[in-house]
């Protein structure tokens, strides 16, 4: 153990901090302006720590703890709103590293020969296990995958059309949407905005209503028992319909009756 402590002292902190700042952080601190990029790039503190060790020969014993802690506190404050959970995970890692460092600085005479007492052992074990799984994930993704790398063969059976219609469940639609989402992210021309589904549903409902009748009064669209959120959603649906030029909203005088009609009935 004395040997360990000696080696800690022999390796100056400057070895890891001496390198110029690149686009990837040099230590566990993530500059707030780059936060989004790094959170997307790394899967969490283990992933980042592993990267730093592999890429920059970061020595987990030699991290400048005081500086890192100070930076982290500022960072957590900045991130409190939307990334608190992740910030907490990074903080936990920092705390662990500080604990390791402090334990290593204090000679522990009672366990001179016990390797198990090396405070780094558990962290090293976790890092290696994580790395193993990370590599496994990478290789798994390299395997040819149905639909992505090859198609399944399926020839039409004439008879099946009428007798058993295909079943669809919610997960099928969900998967279909994930596919669409992936594609729209690739071809940036199409943007799928994240409107609330209830607004879209009410848009359909209003149009259905207008389908049978040429014109309705605004208040008719609000069911008598509607609660506040429903009224808001119906109102939003109406605005969206107007924006998409699917309905026309008219009011002949101030505070007069507001009429809503489908634009197609105008054209017809």
């Amino acid at each position, binding site marked *: 153990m004395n040997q360990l402590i000696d080696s800690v002292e022999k390796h100056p902190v400057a070895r890891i901090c001496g390198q110029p700042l690149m686009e990837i952080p040099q230590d566990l601190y993530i500059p707030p302006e780059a936060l989004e990029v790094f959170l997307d790039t790394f899967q969490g503190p283990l992933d980042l720590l592993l990267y730093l060790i592999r890429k920059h020969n970061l020595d987990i014993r030699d991290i400048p703890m005081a500086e890192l802690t100070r930076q982290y506190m500022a960072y957590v404050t900045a991130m409190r709103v939307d990334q608190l959970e992740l910030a907490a995970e990074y903080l936990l890692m920092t705390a662990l590293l500080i604990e390791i460092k402090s334990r290593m600085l204090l000679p522990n005479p009672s366990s001179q020969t016990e390797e198990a007492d090396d405070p780094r052992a558990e962290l090293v074990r976790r890092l*290696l296990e994580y790395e193993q799984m990370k590599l496994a994930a990478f290789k798994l993704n390299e395997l040819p995958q149905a639909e992505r790398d090859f198609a399944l063969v399926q020839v039409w059976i004439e008879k099946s059309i009428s007798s*058993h219609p295909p079943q669809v469940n919610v997960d099928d639609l969900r998967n279909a949407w994930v*596919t669409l*989402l992936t594609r729209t992210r690739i071809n940036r021309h199409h943007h799928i905005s994240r409107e609330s589904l209830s607004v879209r549903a009410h848009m359909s409902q209003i149009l259905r209503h207008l389908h049978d009748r040429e014109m309705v009064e605004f208040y008719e669209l609000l069911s008598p028992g509607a609660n506040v959120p429903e009224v808001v959603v119906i109102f939003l649906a109406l605005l969206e319909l107007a924006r998409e030029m699917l309905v026309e909203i008219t009011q002949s005088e101030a505070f007069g009756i507001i009429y809503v009609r489908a634009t197609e009935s105008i054209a017809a």
Partner: protein
Amino acid sequence: MSEQPNPSPLDSFNPEIVKRVLETVLLTTQDPLPLSELKKLFNDELSAEVLRRLLEELREEWTTSGIELVTVAEGWRFHTKPEMQPFLDRLNPLKPPRYSRAVLETMAIIAYRQPVTRGDIEAIRGVTVSSAIIKTLEARGWIDTIGHRNVPGRPALFATTKKFLNDLSLRTLEELPPLEELGSLVDSTRNQEIFPDDEAATPVT
């Protein structure tokens, strides 16, 4: 796999290879494929004439097997010969047929983005939506036309029906899986080099 190299035009124009490609594509697609779609396979560099002749040759090649290549209203497709039906019936439980991805995606777009026109659906999917797909969903009673958008051509606006909700055991559309959370699950950057995996992937010694 956009990183796959494009097949060289030379290979694509060898009639035997063209036939193998046509065969493969038709065997993987339940929806009939019109010539206009099949032409895309060869970057529209083969004429409808040439393709039709090769498809006829392919039809000939398949006559001795249990499935046949036919033309239906919407285009070309393989289907099973009637004499195979008794064998197919012995497999039980008969696997329920499934909708093609095109149908499912169209359904998903109508469910989540209604009311939409065919043009809207095509804009999101990035490909043409055949009438057959819309007909399939209408025939199933899952979508209907609830109006027309007041733009040139007055395209029909589609929305989901009550039957759609019933058949999927949903009470309201809000019970569909929320979309917000899905975004993080797909790989937003297809470029591997952005990830630090490259370094990490070197063998550990």
